[in-house]
């Protein structure tokens, strides 16, 4: 164990409530002791659940462990707590790049640049991304294996192109976790399967009109204006309900591991696709 890690560990042992866990966790991460870094980050988060830096540390460790789903969740939470957290913004940009969403990746880097206009690493990351290379993961170690290939990113983007014949062609889970219905509950596109693989499209469609009507009534009577989305975390899965047009409803269902923030992004994409499709086929 190096001297700095030993000293930081001793400080934390003396005062478990202190924020020294941030430095200790980062030191362990840089040394490649990821399991130890993870424990420090999780313990710190339990004591400081509203601290953006704690979520950022946890996300960096998760990224080094290639657990990108949870890393996204943690950086998303960091930005919700502290919208100008540049570490989290850069982290989200990196993860968006990895899934091929270059627009969101650049948008997050631009947001980081507004906060820290003198940080040359942000300009460098934007330039790299425009050339097709992955921006570096935030505070990545030299041996951190986290560079996405531009080929993978490009193919992901290309696969999202709208197919003229199917509403959600190219979108992840198009045949098992996306559903578009009209105002009468008729299925226009997509399909839903439950955890056991059973098709539940018609059963869910029958309930959605009632949910939508109740959501509209609730928003109106409470003076909240028109409703534009309903997100829910379930015990076995998460859902997002939106209406791409006033007469249509879109439901996105994903496994519990997908954070609501990311589900909302996916729902926005699906909503845009559904809207285009409805304009062309309506």
């Amino acid at each position, binding site marked *: 164990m190096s001297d700095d890690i030993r000293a930081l560990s001793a400080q934390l042992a003396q005062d478990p409530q202190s924020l020294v866990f941030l430095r200790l966790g980062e030191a362990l991460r840089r040394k490649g002791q990821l399991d130890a870094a993870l424990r420090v980050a999780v313990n710190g988060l339990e004591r400081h659940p509203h601290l953006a830096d704690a979520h950022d540390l946890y996300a960096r460790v998760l990224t080094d462990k290639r657990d990108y789903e949870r890393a996204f969740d943690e950086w998303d939470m960091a930005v*919700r707590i502290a919208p100008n957290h540049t570490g989290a913004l850069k982290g989200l940009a990196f993860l968006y790049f990895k899934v091929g969403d270059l627009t969101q990746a650049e948008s997050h880097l631009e947001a980081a640049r507004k906060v820290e206009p003198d940080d040359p690493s942000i300009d460098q990351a934007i330039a790299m991304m425009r050339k097709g290379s992955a921006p570096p993961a935030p505070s990545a170690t030299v041996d951190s294996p986290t560079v996405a290939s531009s080929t993978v990113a490009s193919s992901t983007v290309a696969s999202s192109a709208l197919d003229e014949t199917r509403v959600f062609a190219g979108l992840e889970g198009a045949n098992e976790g996306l559903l578009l219905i009209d105002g009468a509950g008729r299925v226009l596109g997509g399909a839903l399967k439950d955890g056991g693989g059973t098709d539940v499209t018609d059963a869910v469609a029958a309930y959605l009109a009632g949910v939508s009507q*109740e*959501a509209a009534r609730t928003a109106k009577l409470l*003076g*909240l204006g028109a409703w*534009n989305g309903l*997100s829910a975390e*379930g015990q076995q*899965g998460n859902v997002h309900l939106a209406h791409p047009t006033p007469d249509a409803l879109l439901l996105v269902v994903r496994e519990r591991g997908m954070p*609501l923030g990311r589900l909302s992004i996916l729902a926005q994409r699906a909503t845009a696709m559904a809207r285009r499709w409805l304009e062309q086929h309506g």
Partner: protein
Amino acid sequence: MSAALDLITRVRGVRGAMLVSAEDGLVIAEQLMEGIKGPAVAALAASLAGKLRRAMGAAGTGTSVFWHLQAEQGALLVVPGGGGNSEGGILVVAVAEPDVNIGLVRLELLRAAAAVI
């Protein structure tokens, strides 16, 4: 109960918090800014929770542990108490501005639910 609601209403952008009976939509406890009609919020939140529970059950996602309705001029955020089974349980409800930090409100709703249920 009041202390639990305090935690929620301290979040910037939250206009009120309530504990609601999921079964009949009646108010159990409330801390609301002027102009918010507690009984209406309670009744509507309970009704929407019931319909959402049935839809999520059909979709195989299990009962909800947190949900929020986003609207142009505000949001309604709800944690059903009792392990996500809102039927016969208590709903912890917040009414908020549209730009509220959803993540923070969610955390406080979950904490409040753990404290009172």
